[in-house]
């Protein structure tokens, strides 16, 4: 459905679109991509702040939050602050809210909108040679459904009772009964608002995924066959399918949980449930496990939604900054397709402890172990791609290279969790948190940062500062490991997740971690310097202090990035040409920044996406759209 009016206006220059149509209600995929980018980064900042408050509670339970306590009071409003944040001390209730919302915001409002909404929208149409997405107005609708969903989530902190606190997983029966209010608060409470926000986010995601798939299938330019597509586009393609097909069961579950909360049904409530000493006046006969099945049916493919765009970005950056083709392009594509397909049959590995029989558990164990294979193929192909390359370590490449071992560690630590027997011990411990944060935080988010550095010159016509880039990278890299590596040790020691006191009331977390004994002399030397008494061993709970400092320093390490992104737009060194990095893919064949309609003339593609250092060529890269030299 083409935007007839849009092209009419621009063809004749009858009226330049005003501010609102140009920047707020734009149907141009590049503007929408930037809108997604800015909004998702803001949400990421908010989600990060929630985590810092949580880290304080974990390391210093019962102590008032220093300096920034007033911000939390502002967020909660006076009523909630009195109930959950008296004297600026984080209660367990508030910690639960922050935990649930940190997960929800980071997954659904920050990482996916950035990886898929921002990068998918901005880069993919350019990479396939299209003038815009297939359905520009639908694209605009998807953005304007996303941010209201996010706003609903934010508002939920302020309503009586505070935000949702049943985990980002929103398990019933707790999520079906928590936070009930009377009058309008029967609907406008945190837990119900969470569901309403999710419905909007799922709708937005659906519109976006339809758009992206049709764009890739239908709008590829002449000569751009499937196996000449850049791997980034393949990755976004598979991601779109995951979003399209995996989200609806969660939407159906969300509708049912909404019915439970608002209409008093018992989809997920078993019979005989007592809450606060009172029997519930419901029919019962429902199943909490039904929620879990429906939730994880989405949430497992969702994690591949989190990772696939990231490997796509890293692939582009590695090819361009090693000046050689990607190793194993066909394997990469095959692995991505296989990964997407298999991801639908592993979900119950999140449910090993729910009493499933051995046959079913074994099945899921098998598929989960199998799904590690395509991930390894992708990682190996990217690593081998570095071999023999002429590597240029700009900021994008630093982040992209660091992604490889970080994602590798995250993926490898997932393997023990795949096994039913091991998961019996590790389930719901900090080990799990360490595993998934490694893949998403120094994994995906590093790749997303890399993408910013890489495509910034195309978007703005200016270069970001390399110095600030390095100042951003090195501390971030160190701090990410400071925060997440100890989590494996804590988890193996048996420390549970979702505890607001960081394990202080749990005997196992007070046990010494044997593997850290060699570090004790170092620690004691530091303690002596601060006038504190030496310790005999480092306990799991002590690691919370290291992680807390890591979080705080990680926050500081983002300041160079924020300055860089904002400052370079006006003050950055002008990009020398349309293609400062010398990349081969189509997005670099546009003017800078690309105008409405993207390409001055419709490009035609003559070769694959990674023709770097072609023997006999006059430069070390041959763009996809450059016509072949006429034979003399």
């Amino acid at each position, binding site marked *: 459905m083409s935007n007839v009016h849009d092209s009419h206006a621009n063809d004749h220059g009858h009226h330049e679109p005003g501010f609102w149509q140009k920047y707020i209600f734009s149907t141009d995929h590049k503007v929408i991509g930037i809108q997604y980018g800015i909004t998702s980064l803001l949400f990421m900042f908010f989600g990060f702040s929630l985590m810092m408050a949580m880290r304080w509670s974990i390391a210093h339970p019962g102590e008032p939050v220093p300096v920034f306590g007033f911000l939390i009071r502002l967020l909660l409003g006076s009523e909630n602050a009195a109930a959950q944040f008296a004297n600026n001390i984080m209660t367990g209730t508030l910690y639960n809210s922050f935990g649930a919302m940190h997960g929800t915001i980071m997954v659904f409002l920050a990482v996916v909108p950035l990886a898929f909404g921002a990068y998918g929208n901005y880069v993919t149409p350019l990479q396939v040679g299209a003038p815009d997405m297939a359905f520009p107005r639908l694209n605009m609708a998807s953005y304007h459904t996303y941010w209201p969903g996010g706003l609903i989530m934010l508002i939920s902190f302020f309503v009586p009772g505070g935000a949702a606190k049943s985990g980002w997983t929103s398990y019933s029966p707790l999520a079906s009964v928590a936070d009930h209010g009377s009058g309008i608060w029967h609907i406008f409470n945190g837990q119900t608002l969470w569901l309403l926000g999710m419905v909007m986010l799922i709708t937005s995601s659906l519109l976006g995924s339809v758009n992206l798939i049709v764009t890739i299938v239908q709008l590829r330019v002449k000569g751009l066959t499937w196996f000449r597509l850049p791997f980034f586009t393949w990755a976004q393609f598979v991601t779109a399918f995951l979003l399209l097909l995996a989200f609806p*069961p969660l939407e159906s579950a969300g509708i049912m949980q909404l019915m439970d909360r608002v209409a008093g049904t018992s989809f997920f409530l078993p019979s005989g449930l007592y809450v606060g000493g009172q029997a519930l006046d419901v029919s019962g006969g429902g199943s909490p496990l039904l929620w879990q099945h429906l939730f994880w049916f989405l949430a497992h493919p969702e994690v591949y939604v989190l990772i696939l765009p990231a490997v796509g970005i890293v692939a582009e950056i590695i090819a361009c900054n090693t000046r050689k083709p990607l190793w194993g392009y066909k394997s990469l594509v095959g692995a991505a397709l296989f990964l997407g397909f298999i991801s639908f049959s592993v979900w119950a590995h999140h449910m090993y402890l729910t009493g499933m029989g051995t046959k079913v558990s074994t099945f899921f164990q098998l598929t989960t172990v199998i799904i590690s294979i395509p991930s390894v193929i992708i990682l190996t192909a990217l690593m081998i791609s570095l071999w023999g390359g002429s590597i240029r370590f700009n900021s994008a490449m630093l982040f992209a290279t660091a992604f490889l071992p970080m994602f590798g560690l995250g993926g490898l630590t997932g393997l023990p969790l795949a096994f039913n027997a091991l998961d019996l011990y590790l389930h719901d411990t900090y080990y799990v948190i360490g595993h998934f944060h490694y893949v998403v935080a120094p994994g995906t988010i590093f790749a997303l940062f890399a993408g910013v550095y890489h495509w910034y010159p195309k978007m703005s016509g200016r270069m970001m500062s390399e110095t600030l880039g390095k100042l951003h990278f090195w501390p971030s890299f160190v701090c990410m490991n400071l925060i997440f590596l100890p989590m494996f040790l804590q988890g193996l020691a048996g420390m549970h997740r979702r505890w607001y006191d960081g394990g202080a009331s749990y005997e196992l977390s007070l046990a010494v971690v044997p593997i850290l004994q060699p570090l004790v002399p170092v620690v004691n030397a530091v303690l002596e310097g601060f006038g504190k008494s030496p310790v005999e061993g480092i306990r799991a709970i002590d690691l919370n202090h290291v992680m807390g400092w890591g979080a705080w320093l990680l926050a500081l390490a983002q300041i160079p990035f924020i300055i860089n992104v904002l400052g370079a737009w006006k003050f950055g060194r002008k990009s020398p040409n349309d293609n400062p990095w010398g990349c081969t893919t189509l997005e670099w064949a546009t003017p800078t920044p690309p105008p409405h309609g993207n390409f001055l003339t419709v490009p035609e593609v003559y070769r694959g996406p990674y023709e770097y250092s072609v023997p006999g060529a006059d430069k070390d890269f041959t763009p996809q759209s450059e016509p072949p030299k006429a034979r003399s």
Partner: protein
Amino acid sequence: MEIPYTVKPRPDTGVYNGKLGIWLFLASEVMLFGGLFASYIFLRLGAPEGTWPNGLMNVWAGFFNSIILLLSSVFVTMTWAAVKLNDFKGFKRNLAITMLLSLVFLGVKSYEYNQKFHHYGVFLKDASSPVGWSVQITGHVLNNIEKDDHILLAADAYQPSDWRSAPKSENADKIKENPALRFALPGVEITEEKHDGEPVLKIDKKDVFRSSYFVPKYNSFFAIYYTMSGLHALHMIGGLVVFLYFWTFGSKMFHTHRAQFANRIEVTGLFWHFVDLIWFFLFPVMYLM
């Protein structure tokens, strides 16, 4: 700036953009209703033996609606054909019939919902039963159940929790003579009165395990029935809004860009056929099984 393949199909895929788009959307809708149908299966399988109700639905209303929706589906194809053949009058007529038929469907649905909301059900306590109740009696409430300590019910049916396996009652002959005797149960007083030909029962609240109108919270069956048929109805209303737009402001495009307009009608028609398909499954599953 023109987006290619909006009207003419792309040669190697054989489709125009909107068609691929709507099929992808329908795939996601299959997953949405699929999730709900799967939940139906799990709820029914997980329900204690015999507690899943039977015979509470108005099957004739459902059958009537099935034919109505099928008819509206064929008229939406006629609408598309009229656009292709440059028959504006035919387009308007067929689309009007389509919309009218869907309004009839929604009207019947509203009538059904209304009937249900006024129907009441009482579960009689039975401590010896694994589910806490042994019989549910349904009918219409005659008194103010908030204020009074008893319920006056003009009863039309009763269903024991073990109805699938229960042996025939010894009083079968007596019941044939006087159907009201069905309700001769502990805790139930059969009054002398009748209301619309049905016996009026007096049931003390202390003998009641649970009771409510036939609203979503009544039992798992109504929960899933209202959720699924409600979601289906919402989809119909959405389609109706789009049809109305094409019938009014959107019909201008018939004269200016007819080929593109035909595509839009086709795409909306595909959505409408999907809505019909969902009803194909909803009717037998909810009404007949």
